[in-house]
């Protein structure tokens, strides 16, 4: 079924799925990398109300990925948009018929298409991390800050684990987008609902209903993105979100495998 993934990549190489999201990712990453380094201070100003970015943090072993971690939420929403659009436009273009006539095993088709999208997310995160580290390296150099800790064993471990965590997190956010698209068969509706849920509804629920933060999928994925946090350990969070996806994804695939496909 590698053919399904190769087929998916023909579509994913379109400008709307490659240059636009990758361009936005690079732009956001540069912005969120360069500006903090330029505004970093060696000693916090006690009069300042803002939480300062300290040079000591930047030169630390995890400094290479500080900016990447800061901007990942935006990149995750870009991935959600792409996953949702990739699934829903097959309905709006009518091309879902072409796929199903050639590959009647619907669940298998959709799972391998999802793997194709996951590989796209890996490339996005790779570019994201590389741009973050390289632009950070250059900017740190212009400011005369040391980056020797970045490439020590601990620093490289941070970079590697950040890549894995962010890839997982982006893929998890985006998978919710593709599940919505499979259920709603509409790009606009699935993207709108997906983004509204993660950016607005979860924040409102978290603020208004105590205890929900630990159970809301967006918060759990954020825990995963950081390799675990106070709310959830990495593996606990991953297991919990995998449960959400198994239930929602399983239900949507069950419907997809049985439903009539007609224009």
């Amino acid at each position, binding site marked *: 079924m590698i*053919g*399904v993934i*190769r*087929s998916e990549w*023909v*579509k994913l190489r*379109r*400008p*709307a799925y490659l240059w636009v999201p990758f361009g936005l990712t690079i732009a956001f990453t540069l912005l969120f990398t360069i500006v903090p380094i330029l505004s970093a201070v060696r000693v916090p100003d006690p009069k300042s109300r803002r939480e300062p970015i300290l040079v000591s943090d930047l030169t630390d072993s995890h400094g290479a990925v500080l900016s990447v971690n800061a901007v990942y939420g935006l990149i995750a929403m870009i991935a959600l948009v792409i996953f949702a659009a990739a699934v829903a*436009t097959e309905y709006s*273009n*009518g*091309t879902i*018929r*072409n*796929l*199903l*006539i*050639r*590959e*009647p*095993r619907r669940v298998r088709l959709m799972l391998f298409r999802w793997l194709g999208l996951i590989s796209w997310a890996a490339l996005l995160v790779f570019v994201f991390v590389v741009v973050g580290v390289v632009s950070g390296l250059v900017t740190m150099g212009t400011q005369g800050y040391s980056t020797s800790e970045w490439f020590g064993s601990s620093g490289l471990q941070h970079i590697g684990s950040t890549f894995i965590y962010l890839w997982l997190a982006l893929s998890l956010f985006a998978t919710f987008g593709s599940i919505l698209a499979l259920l709603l068969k509409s790009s606009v509706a699935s993207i709108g609902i997906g983004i509204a849920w993660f950016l607005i509804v979860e924040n409102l629920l978290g603020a208004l209903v105590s205890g929900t933060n630990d159970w809301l999928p967006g918060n759990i994925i954020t825990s995963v993105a950081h390799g675990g946090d106070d709310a959830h350990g990495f593996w606990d969070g991953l297991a919990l979100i995998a449960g959400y996806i198994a239930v929602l994804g399983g239900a949507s695939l069950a419907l997809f495998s*049985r439903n*009539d*496909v*007609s*224009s």
Partner: protein
Amino acid sequence: MEAANANLAVDLTGLSKVYGTRRVVDSLDLNIRRGSICGLVGPNGAGKTTAIRMVLGLIGRDEGDGLVLGHQLDDRIGYLPKVGALIEGPAFTPSLSARKNLLVLTRLIGLEDTRADEVLQQVGLGDRMTDKAKTYSLGMRQRLGIAAALLTSPELLVLDEPTNGLDPAGIREIRDLLRALADSGVAVLVSSHLLGELQAICDDIVVIDNGKVGYSGSVQGIIAGQSSQVVARPADPGQLQALQSLAQRFGTATVYDNGTVGFDGEQDQAAELNKAAFEAGILLSGLGIVRPTLEQAFFAMTEGDDQ
């Protein structure tokens, strides 16, 4: 069972689809011989596309059974790789070139990329294969849809309105292509509203009306059930009524808006009418036999049933 029907690419019995209380397809029997072109006709909403969708596995069926290319209807994995289809119009990703649209499919089913180039040449799009699908005319998109259907060198080709949007030369090309494919052993199922076109290319015809089969058999068979018409035109339009009265002796004569009189008959009746008109002092400026058409047979069968 398979051996007994080896000559049939499609051998379905009692196919039904129910939406709510409405039987959209009602106990449809469908037989398509290998190496033949079968036309599927019916008024809008008759159930043609629903029947095709069921054969292609896009929608489930409520009743019915049978074989497609020797495989049970439920065994879609067995027969769909040998089926090519263009249904409900050509569907493509507009921002991809024609070639890349086909590469999506060749890679999905594990064909060589060169197969896309071959079928694009076959349908006359070789020079425009790198153009984006969104720049294609309706006729070109139609050709692209047919190219996609041909990718797998199918044993059964299902085409829904294949000549829609094509110019006369394009229609002839597709007609020749379908005939060549049928001659090579491919079973072709064509759904169309262009009855003249179906009459020209089809060996067999299935008429569906209100979800049920109204006729299933050869094109000659359905036409044979209709009569030829003798049609005469008086040189003086003022003699139209007199000509009608004269023609009544051969059968029920009808005056048409185009200034002619017609009745069911053959050459003998035409000759007799000519003689009688001459004797009655009616000069005819036109006299001929109109052979029955598929369209005539279709309307005779479905008249009054169209919603």
